[in-house]
Structure formats: structure tokens, C-alpha cells
């Protein structure tokens, strides 16, 4: 909750960014600074997954998770990648020129609109309590356990719900705790907000390669406005994080199918490794992504399938150690306990199908994302855009089928249960986030396909000043307006102590505050024995037991009593309730 925690988080995330940016520079290079900035979001996400995956694998083999490892690994990775990049002949990006004109202005509007929303979403994230059931039930306890015990404590980890879930996200939580200097689960929400910023930036940066600005940005802003996406960016659970990785991997893979730039496959592999170390659904999502890639590249299978085989081998190698760990620790597996196909549950299948489509089409969860994507797919097939449409159609169909299957086999049934429950809403976040990435690509590809030729360079003024103003003014104005409404608070446990400086209706003389209720009772007894009658102990709103006397009418009366109490050898301070 403190500025210190926020500063620690900022430092940690700068390390993620540095490691990812240098990794991207190594595998891709950077034409110029404009190009480097566009890929900064992807660099951040890659930095998180590469560092997080390595931390996770080190934890699994028993390496102690310390502050040294938290700081040292990303620095070592950045240094190693930088040396490798220089050896590979990568040059430092130089200069850069913005393509001007109206597309730049539209981009500026999109950046301003999404940036302002992200600023708005940061404010509740910073002081949010941990309310989500799965968050306090097992995700955060795992992170706290790694932080406190320095590793995957056998007894603790194997006894938690979701014990078989891979520990990448708890490891990232533990790293955040180290960076903040304490297990500050309130400020931890800001870490998840940062993951969200990384996703939006990464996705927009990637899509901007192939999608005109006027098609792209409405979808990027819509991502933040979909109730179950934008409003849940700060939720301390792994679902949205997994969905983000899935969608980035999907876009990278479809781009690779289109242009065969090898770096895309390398980055996609890193992201996929993170995905299978995040949740058990990561395995399912990896499988459907692989299947869609195989189908969409079937015509060139000789050149694509071996590369996809290598990707699969690397991802399986990353996924395996955790599965070995939990099997050797007698943790029940990630699959359904009654088997992958359950003949005796056929009666639930129809309900599962209905439930999945009900959730998908509910604008209360996803705004208009899903119907727009369905229509975008139709348009793309009519426009014969080819592989992009096939890839996304197959992938979306498989994710939905996966959702139906998971709903069917994992649902608790009986009185009081809704088939699929909350699980399917969270799972389908992956499908909907995929829709948000797919729609602009499909529409952009359709638009380009029927365009009469390359779009002529805008010969009109470049409007860079206008674009800069559109971005900077609202992004600066929003925090200024927010701060004008009251300076940001950084609550601490000491905030309940409010020394009185003037008369107030709620004055009291406070003799002490204690974490231990017995110490409060002891002080009260000593005060009473000394003759200070009428004091009492009370639990304050900062989690301490307060010993105080509250029948105070004026500051002068309070000061006089406090002086008398101090004279008797106790501590005393006149305070107001505030």
C-alpha cells in the first residue's frame, strides 16, 4: 500500500522490460527507435515469461527463491542476451521517422483513449483488497509461501486447492513481494495491472503491423471496455494472464505462417512455455493453437510442420518438470478425475453446450466482441483472405469445443450448481480475447485484399504536433484532475493515530496501541490500578488494540489528562477519531 512498494514494483518491472527488450533485440533486431517503442509491450511480456519461466524451473529443481535471484536473473539474462546480440552483429537502433498524416492522428486518438482507460483502471487497482476466492484460496498463498519459505514447500503446496496448477504466477507474485519488501497483497494488484498494460501494448504493437489504424484502435479500446476483461485486469488470479499469453502466441504464430520470420516463432515459443507453466488450461490452449497452426499450414506442411514440431518439443520440455514434481509429490493430476470422456455424464453435455454459448453471447460479459468477430469471419471468408481466416476460424472453434468439453467433464452438478459455474466464464475469456485480436486482423486483411493497390503515402501535412498533443494532453490531464480531487493516499497501520491539534467532537486520550491484545489488557489493568479509571481497550480500524479514555470534552482537558498520565509513567496522546 506504500510508495515504497510501488517503487519496488516499478524496479522489478523495469528489469522484466530490460530482459525482454534485449531478448527481442537479439532474436529480431530493431530497425529504429520507433520500431523499438512499438514492440516495447511485447518486450515486457516476453521479459515476464522468460524470467518467470526460468524462475519456475529453478524452483522446481530446488533452487532457493531469494531477493538475489529475483534481481540477479533478469540482469543476467539481459546481459547475456546483449552479449549474444552484439556477437550476432545486431546494431543499436538509430533514429526513426513517424509516418505522418491522418493514420498517425487516429493512432494518437487510440493511444490516448486506451492510455486514459488504463490510467483510470490503475486507481482502483492500487488500493484494492484481495476479494477473489481463488486469489486468497490458493494463488496468493502459493506466492506468499514461495516468498516466506524460499521455495515450493512440500507440505504447504501439496495441501492447497489447485495443487497441480503450475507455479509461474505464484512465482511472479513472490518476486513482486521481494521487490516490494513485504507480502503486500494490496499493491500486488498493481502488478497485474502492469501485466494488462503489457498485453494491450504488445497486442496493439503486433496488430499495427498489418491492420490500418482506423480498424485497429476501436478494438484495442473495446478490449478494455469489455466488462470481464478490462475491469478484471487487476484481478490477482492467473486466468487473464493466461489468456493474454495465449492471444499473443496466436498472433505471433499466424504472422509466422504468413511471413515465416523466424523470430516470431522463437518469441511465440517463449510465450507458449509461459502458458503451459501458468495453468492446466494452458496445455489445452497450447494443443488447440498447435492444431489450428497445423490445419492452416497444411498445404506447406513440409516446411511448417517440422518447425511446429520443434516448438512443441520445447514447450513440452518446459511443461514436463512441473508435472514430474507434482506426480512425485502425490498430488492428484490436472485432468478430470473420472477420465477425459465420461459416458455417464452425457445428460450434462447439452447443458454444457448451452452454457458455453450463453456465456459467449452475453454482452454483459464481453460487450459486442463475439458477434462482431463472427461477422468479421464471414466477411473475411467472402473476401477470400485465406490463411488468416482459416487459422482463426479453426482456433476459435477448437477453443469453444475445449470449453464445452471442460464444462462437461469438470462441472459439479446437482442442486445449487450451475453447469460450468464461474469456471467457464473465466475460460472463455481466452476465446473472447482471441476474438478481439482476430477481428481487426480479419477486417484489415479483407480491406487490404479489396484495395485497388498500395495505399498512397499521405502527401498532406504529417500532423505530428497534433498527434503528440492528442496523446499527451489527456494522459497528463487525467492524473492532474484525479489528484486535484484529493492527493493519493498511501495507507499504513499507523494512520489510526491522529494527534489532535484543536477541539473536535471525538477527542480521546490514547495510552497505547498493541498488536497483542494481552499487552493492551495488561496496560489497562496497570492504569486502573494506578487510579486512571474509565479507560477501555478497543480494536481499532488498523488492526491494533487501543487503550484509551474517550470522555474528553476539549483539547485542554485532554492535554491535562495526558500530562497527568505521563507524569505517572505511562504514555498518552490526545487524538481525534478523524
Amino acid at each position, binding site marked *: 500500500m506504500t510508495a515504497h512498494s510501488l517503487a519496488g514494483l516499478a524496479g522489478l518491472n523495469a528489469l522484466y522490460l530490460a530482459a525482454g527488450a534485449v531478448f527481442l533485440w537479439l532474436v529480431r533486431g530493431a530497425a529504429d527507435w520507433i520500431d523499438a517503442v512499438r514492440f516495447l509491450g511485447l518486450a515486457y511480456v516476453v521479459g515476464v515469461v522468460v524470467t518467470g519461466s526460468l524462475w519456475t524451473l529453478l524452483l522446481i529443481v530446488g533452487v532457493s527463491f531469494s531477493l538475489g535471484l529475483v534481481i540477479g536473473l533478469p540482469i543476467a539474462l539481459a546481459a547475456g542476451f546483449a552479449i549474444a546480440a552484439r556477437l550476432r552483429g545486431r546494431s543499436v537502433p538509430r533514429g526513426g521517422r513517424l509516418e505522418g498524416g491522418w493514420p498517425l492522428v487516429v493512432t494518437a486518438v487510440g493511444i490516448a483513449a486506451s492510455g486514459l482507460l488504463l490510467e*483510470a483502471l490503475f*486507481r482502483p487497482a492500487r488500493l484494492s*483488497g484481495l476479494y477473489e476466492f481463488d486469489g*486468497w484460496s490458493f494463488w496468493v498463498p502459493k506466492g506468499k*509461501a514461495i516468498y516466506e519459505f524460499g521455495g515450493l514447500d512440500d507440505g504447504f503446496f501439496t495441501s492447497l486447492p489447485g495443487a497441480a496448477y503450475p507455479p509461474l504466477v505464484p512465482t511472479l507474485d513472490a518476486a513482486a513481494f521481494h521487490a516490494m519488501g513485504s507480502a503486500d497483497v494490496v499493491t500486488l494488484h498493481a502488478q497485474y495491472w502492469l501485466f494488462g498494460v503489457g498485453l494491450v501494448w504488445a497486442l496493439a504493437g503486433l496488430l499495427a503491423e498489418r491492420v490500418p489504424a482506423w480498424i485497429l484502435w476501436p478494438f484495442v479500446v*473495446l478490449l478494455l471496455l469489455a466488462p470481464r476483461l478490462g475491469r478484471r485486469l487487476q484481478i490477482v488470479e492467473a486466468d487473464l494472464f493466461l489468456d493474454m499469453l495465449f492471444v499473443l502466441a496466436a498472433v505471433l504464430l499466424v504472422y509466422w505462417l504468413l511471413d515465416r520470420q523466424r523470430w516470431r516463432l522463437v518469441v511465440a515459443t517463449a510465450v507458449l512455455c509461459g502458458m503451459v507453466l501458468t495453468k492446466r488450461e494452458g496445455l489445452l490452449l497450447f494443443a488447440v493453437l498447435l492444431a489450428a497452426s497445423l490445419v492452416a499450414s497444411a498445404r506447406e506442411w513440409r516446411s511448417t510442420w517440422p518447425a511446429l514440431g520443434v516448438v512443441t518439443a520445447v514447450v513440452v520440455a518446459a511443461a514436463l518438470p512441473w508435472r514430474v514434481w507434482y506426480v512425485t509429490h502425490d498430488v492428484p493430476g490436472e485432468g478430470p478425475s473420472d477420465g477425459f470422456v465420461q459416458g455417464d455424464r452425457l445428460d450434462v453435455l447439452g447443458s454444457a453446450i448451452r452454457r458455453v454459448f450463453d456465456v459467449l453471447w452475453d454482452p454483459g460479459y464481453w460487450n*459486442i466482441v463475439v458477434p462482431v468477430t463472427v461477422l468479421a469471419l464471414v466477411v473475411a471468408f467472402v473476401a477470400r483472405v485465406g490463411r488468416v481466416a482459416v487459422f482463426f476460424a479453426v482456433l476459435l472453434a477448437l477453443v469453444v469445443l475445449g470449453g464445452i468439453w471442460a464444462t462437461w467433464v469438470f462441472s459439479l452438478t446437482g442442486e445449487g450448481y450451475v453447469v460450468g459455474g464461474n469456471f467457464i466464464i473465466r475460460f472463455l475469456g481466452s476465446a473472447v480475447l482471441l476474438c478481439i485480436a482476430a477481428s481487426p486482423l480479419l477486417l484489415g486483411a479483407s480491406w487490404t485484399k479489396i484495395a485497388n493497390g498500395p495505399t498512397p503515402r499521405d502527401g498532406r501535412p504529417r500532423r505530428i504536433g497534433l498527434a503528440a498533443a492528442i496523446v499527451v494532453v489527456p494522459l497528463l490531464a487525467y492524473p492532474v484532475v484525479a489528484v486535484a480531487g484529493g492527493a493519493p493516499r498511501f495507507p499504513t497501520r499507523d494512520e489510526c493515530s491522529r494527534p489532535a491539534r484543536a477541539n473536535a467532537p471525538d477527542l480521546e486520550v490514547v495510552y497505547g496501541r498493541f498488536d497483542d491484545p494481552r499487552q493492551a489488557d495488561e496496560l489497562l489493568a496497570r492504569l486502573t490500578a494506578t487510579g486512571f479509571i474509565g479507560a477501555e481497550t478497543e480494536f481499532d*480500524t488498523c*488492526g491494533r488494540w487501543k487503550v484509551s479514555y474517550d470522555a474528553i470534552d476539549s483539547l485542554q482537558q485532554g492535554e491535562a489528562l495526558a500530562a497527568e498520565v505521563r507524569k505517572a509513567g505511562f504514555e498518552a496522546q490526545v487524538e481525534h477519531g478523524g
Partner: protein
Amino acid sequence: MSWWTEWPTGPIRTAVALLVAAVGIAVVVTYPGLVREAGDEADANSAQAYVDREVAGGNGLVANQQALYAARALIPADATYHVAIAGDYEGGDELTQDHVASYFRYALIPRRPEERAAWVVCYGCDLAEYGPRAEVLWRGDEDISIVHVPS
């Protein structure tokens, strides 16, 4: 022919433009609501008492916040503890009976839960069953106690 009637490119152009426009309208309609909602939530979070924010998902569930803070103060960080709840305990909310132990596990780390631990957080339990040596170190409202049973 105009750009939107020419076959087949016209309808495709029109469809693309209409879909982007639909998304644009959805954005314009819902944007102010989200900014306002986020601001309201930020104000509400900021105005919360320290304990309400810290206990968050455990408010109601733990029946009495004091039990949590007393447990943190009384049970040593390297000790083990057990949360016992009587089958007929009626305090707290609908989650208390099944999940209060789980919440304590989250809130009391690095203390580890253990079935036969010397430290017991008792929700409506019969203290006599812990024997004459059991020492009640804290007793709060809602029939919650923290008990130490010397081994």
C-alpha cells in the same frame, strides 16, 4: 458504380466499415461509464479502513476481524496451528463453515496449518475437549477463541 455497390468489393468494404463503426459506437457509449466506475471504485477503496482492505475477502467469512489479528499476534511465526470449527457454528457468513480454515491459511503464512498443532483457533468449539492444560489466550465475540495446548 459507387465504392459500396461494386460487386463483390463494395459489400465487403461496407461490411468492414459498418463493423468498425459498430465497435466505435460501442466504445463511445461505454467509455464514460468505465472511467466513472473506475473512479468510484478508487474512491471507495481509498476510503476503506485499513483492516477492511487488508482482510478484504475474509470480511464476514472470519466472523470477527479481531480473531485474525489476535492469531497473528499470539501464534509465533514459526509455529503450526489448527482452525477448528464446530459443526453447528452459526457465526460468520455462508462461507465460514467450509472456508474459514482456508482463509486463515492465507492470512497466517508463514505459520503452517497442521491437524494436531498446539495452537488452535476455535470457532464455537468445545474447549473442554482440549483438556485441562489448554490455555485460552484470547476470546472474542462470535464465540471465537485462540487456545494453546501445551504438548
